[in-house]
């Protein structure tokens, strides 16, 4: 075997820079290699050391997050996190970004984001049972926004609907800071038995390395590197680096993997996601502390004359790498062939701790594994803490609109308007276990064949994070905790997707550090550890960064689904109570931003983690005891918007008989819930609150088709529904 690389370009300083590596990083590579890398080796190092794969700017801070708990079976570091949900069942979940590709090609970018996160989950032996997403778009009036919304929504639906996994929830915000960098964060939750979980680690020298799924093409080459750089005006030219998805193949891959997983033939399995064959083989071999030898001649290709460099770096979708027990190849091949998928033994494990790659009779790469997997420098990037904001100046409030006008303004705003236009394009019901789909606080998905359910939600309030990263980070976790508690379920663990600007700017790094600090504090206080996650940096265009957006995906479990409550008024004569104290904090509120149109929004509402936990436990207890008819968490838009959201679904209104100012009605104080209590249980409820030492305030009673505040306002729900429902179709220039 010769070691010629005659057709490959020489490695120059320019080529190194084009691969996104700094001169210092290149010197480290040379040191690890003991020589200069060739072109292919440079490509492999560049993707493994990209921000996207190596977390080099974020690792130092990620280590500070709490990742343990009695419920945790597998924390960060695997394809997805795994938690114990009792009775031998496990929930496996993760959230991941596909921001950069979705901006360049919204349909395929979003679709492959969904496909990728589902593979992360079913790689571990789980059957995906719920998809969620967290989306951020530019200003509604920005000329690209409707096009991006339409493309992303149909991409998410196109993939999830076809594969047959319900999309049950999510969140959407619009803000000018996302004009050049939309955020598409996809979350998938799957179910497995705790004794049938599959990991990436490859062990057993001589074991066959097997490639399954789709063929490899030239799509997505350097996707991971693209996701690790800022955009500029020429970013549309990066379209060829966006992968193309085929959900049909993924459905077949899912079924074939599930079938093989029912046997004991698999030693390790890993999705070929970012950085494709390179990262999957490096990670599997490194985790198993072995070496790997690959023969690229065996890789199924869909294009001719692909170079080794292209095969190693392709991000073609719907592919998996697995290590089988020796001798089980035929049995596995039969399954994949029956499902019409490629199956090829492309290599074997060795004891060298090196990655050896051969192609067309030549040795094209020979690299030490540990530096590839783990040797990227860890940067302690300089940061400056975000300055605290002065309290809000509310002299303008004297000229505010009346309550009714303010409420209508908010309910028809981009932040509060109904997302029906989006969620009706997602199949939210397939698999027959969706107990509560989009539009609630957390979605509820039954664990198939049992009487328990998963509660799942995605949350973050970027404007809070911008004003005070630490408080915003706390609030995001607290809101996920509240949304799950509001269904009656017990919050168990989170995944996160940390979207920020360029970490090389100290103020952006300050946002990152602050948000993680707050997130960690909240996770610890609420016993709500982080089990998986993803970091997306460089969400900047021409030097302008996005709002810090650390999206949280929360998962909880409801032991008895018959106890579940919704967030809507379903009956008249329910007594409505606020759980938690209302101070009237208007800083960073939607009211301050949208109604008062203030430039300086002041500080976000403080989070009292002790109260969050206490109120969450109280609400879950009340639901478990059958005392509550409906529960809704209070967040964006404060009490009055929360009341409107409870009244709109079934057009059952309410009459409120206490008085308050705008700060009372629209303040976004944390740790609060609205609950509806039937006439025969309100005494027990009040007693329970007194015993628990939880502050409750009776607001009024449900009934009628209006939202009425005595002596102040009456709004027809029909009229409000018009404004609330029409905003999205109007934006998208269509009718419902």
């Amino acid at each position: 075997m010769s070691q010629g690389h005659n057709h490959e370009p020489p490695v120059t300083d320019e080529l190194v820079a084009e691969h996104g590596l700094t001169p210092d990083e290149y010197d480290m590579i040379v040191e690890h290699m003991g020589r200069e890398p060739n072109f292919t080796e440079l490509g492999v190092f560049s993707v493994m050391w990209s921000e996207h794969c190596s977390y080099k700017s974020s690792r130092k801070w990620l280590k500070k997050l709490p990742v343990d708990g009695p419920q945790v079976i597998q924390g960060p570091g695997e394809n997805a996190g795994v938690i114990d949900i009792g009775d031998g069942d496990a929930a496996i979940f993760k959230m991941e970004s596909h921001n950069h590709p979705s901006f360049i090609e919204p349909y395929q970018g979003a679709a492959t984001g969904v496909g990728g996160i589902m593979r992360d989950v079913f790689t571990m032996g789980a059957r995906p049972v719920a998809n969620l997403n967290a989306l951020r778009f530019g200003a509604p009036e920005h000329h690209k926004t409707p096009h991006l919304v339409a493309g992303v929504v149909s991409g998410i639906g196109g993939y999830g609907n076809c594969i047959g996994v319900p999309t049950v929830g999510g969140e959407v915000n619009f803000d000018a800071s996302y004009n050049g960098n939309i955020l598409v964060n996809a979350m998938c939750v799957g179910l497995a038995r705790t004794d049938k979980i599959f990991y990436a680690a490859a062990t057993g020298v001589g074991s066959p390395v097997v490639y399954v799924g789709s063929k490899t093409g030239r799509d997505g080459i350097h996707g991971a590197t693209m996701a690790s750089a800022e955009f500029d005006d020429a970013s549309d030219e990066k379209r060829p680096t966006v992968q193309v998805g085929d959900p049909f193949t993924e459905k077949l891959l899912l079924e074939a993997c599930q079938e093989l997983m029912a046997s004991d033939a698999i030693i390790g399995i890993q999705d070929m996601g970012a950085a494709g064959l390179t990262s999957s083989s490096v990670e599997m071999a490194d985790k198993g502390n072995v070496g790997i030898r690959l023969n690229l001649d065996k890789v199924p290709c869909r294009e001719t004359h692909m170079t080794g460099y292209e095969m190693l770096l392709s991000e073609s979708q719907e592919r998996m790498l697995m290590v089988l027990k020796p001798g089980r190849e035929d049995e596995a091949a039969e399954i994949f062939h029956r499902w019409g998928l490629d199956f090829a033994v492309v290599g074997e494990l060795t004891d060298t701790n090196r990655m050896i790659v051969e192609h067309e009779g030549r040795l094209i790469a020979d690299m030490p594994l540990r530096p590839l997997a783990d040797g990227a420098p860890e940067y302690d990037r300089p940061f400056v803490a975000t300055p605290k904001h002065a309290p809000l100046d509310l002299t303008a409030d004297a000229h505010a609109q009346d309550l009714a006008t303010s409420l209508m303004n908010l309910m028809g705003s981009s932040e509060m308007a109904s997302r029906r236009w989006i969620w009706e394009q997602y199949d939210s019901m397939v698999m027959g276990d969706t107990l509560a789909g989009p539009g609630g606080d957390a979605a509820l998905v039954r664990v198939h064949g049992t009487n328990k359910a998963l509660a799942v939600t995605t949350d973050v309030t970027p404007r809070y994070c911008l004003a005070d990263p630490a408080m915003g980070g706390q609030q995001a976790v607290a809101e996920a905790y509240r949304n799950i508690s509001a269904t009656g379920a017990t919050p168990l663990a989170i995944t996160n997707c940390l979207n920020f600007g360029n970490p090389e700017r100290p103020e952006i790094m300050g946002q990152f550090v602050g948000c993680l600090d707050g997130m960690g504090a909240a996770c610890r206080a609420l016993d709500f550890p982080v089990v998986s996650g993803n970091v997306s940096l460089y969400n900047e265009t021409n030097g302008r960064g996005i709002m810090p957006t650390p999206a949280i995906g929360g998962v909880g479990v409801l032991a008895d689904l018959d106890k579940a409550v919704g967030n809507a008024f379903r009956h008249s004569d329910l007594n409505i109570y606020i759980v938690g104290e209302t101070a009237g904090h208007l800083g960073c509120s939607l009211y301050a931003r949208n109604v008062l149109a203030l430039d300086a929004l002041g500080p976000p509402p403080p989070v009292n983690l002790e109260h969050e936990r206490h109120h969450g436990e109280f609400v879950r207890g009340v639901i478990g005891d059958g005392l509550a008819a409906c529960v809704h968490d209070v967040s964006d838009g404060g009490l009055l918007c929360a009341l409107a959201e409870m009244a709109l679904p079934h057009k059952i209104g309410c009459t409120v008989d206490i008085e308050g100012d705008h700060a009372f009605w629209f303040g976004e104080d944390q740790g609060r819930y609205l609950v509806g209590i039937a006439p025969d249980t309100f005494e027990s409820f009040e007693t329970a609150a007194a015993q628990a030492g939880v502050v409750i305030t009776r607001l009024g009673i449900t009934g009628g088709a209006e939202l009425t505040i005595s002596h102040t306002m009456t709004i027809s729900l029909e009229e409000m529904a018009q404004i609330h429902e029409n905003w999205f179709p109007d934006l998208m220039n269509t009718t419902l």
Partner: protein
Amino acid sequence: MRAAVIVFPGSNCDRDVAVCLEAAGTKPDMVWHGETSLPACDLIVLPGGFSYGDYLRCGSMAANSPVMREVVARAHAGTAVLGICNGFQVLTECGLLPGVLMRNRDLNFVCRNTRLNVTRTDTPFTHLYEADEEIIIPVAHNEGNYFADDDTLVRLQGENQIVFTYASGDNPNGASLDIAGITDPTGRVLGMMPHPERRAEKALGGADGRRMFDGVMEMLS
């Protein structure tokens, strides 16, 4: 009653409908599309999903898969056939039912509850419903816009082959005559876009779909 559910590559409501059949009292045989024979059965279900990834045209490749020859033969011999969503598309593609399912009026996938009128109650599938009863059953499709030429539509009306229509103002896809489901002239082959299996128990928000499975069970046993 014995039932068979055909599983095409890309079917994704096969399990859901099997769950409903089992709840109604019969555990169906799951039959892979590559089979050339069917077990003895009184009901064949073509489930929802994206058979063959909807490539070429929804249902067209499934209509030409090996098992469909046997399905068509059984239908002609009188076995009841239920095609739901993609299954309805397959039934039109294989010629057991007339017309075609085009892309939705708004060109978007739509998943939501729809109000349906049961316009015919003398079929094995609908005899437990009241005549003209309004029921709620969800849809989830991108190509549910039923279309047929005028002669066919007149014939469907004249022969009483329209079984479900979307209630007034609730047509989610632009279907001609608000058609949600039709039968063949015998009343034993039903194709419908809405998913009765998704609303067959109270925990899922309602059980209007349950009576279809109970009804089939009762009449074909």
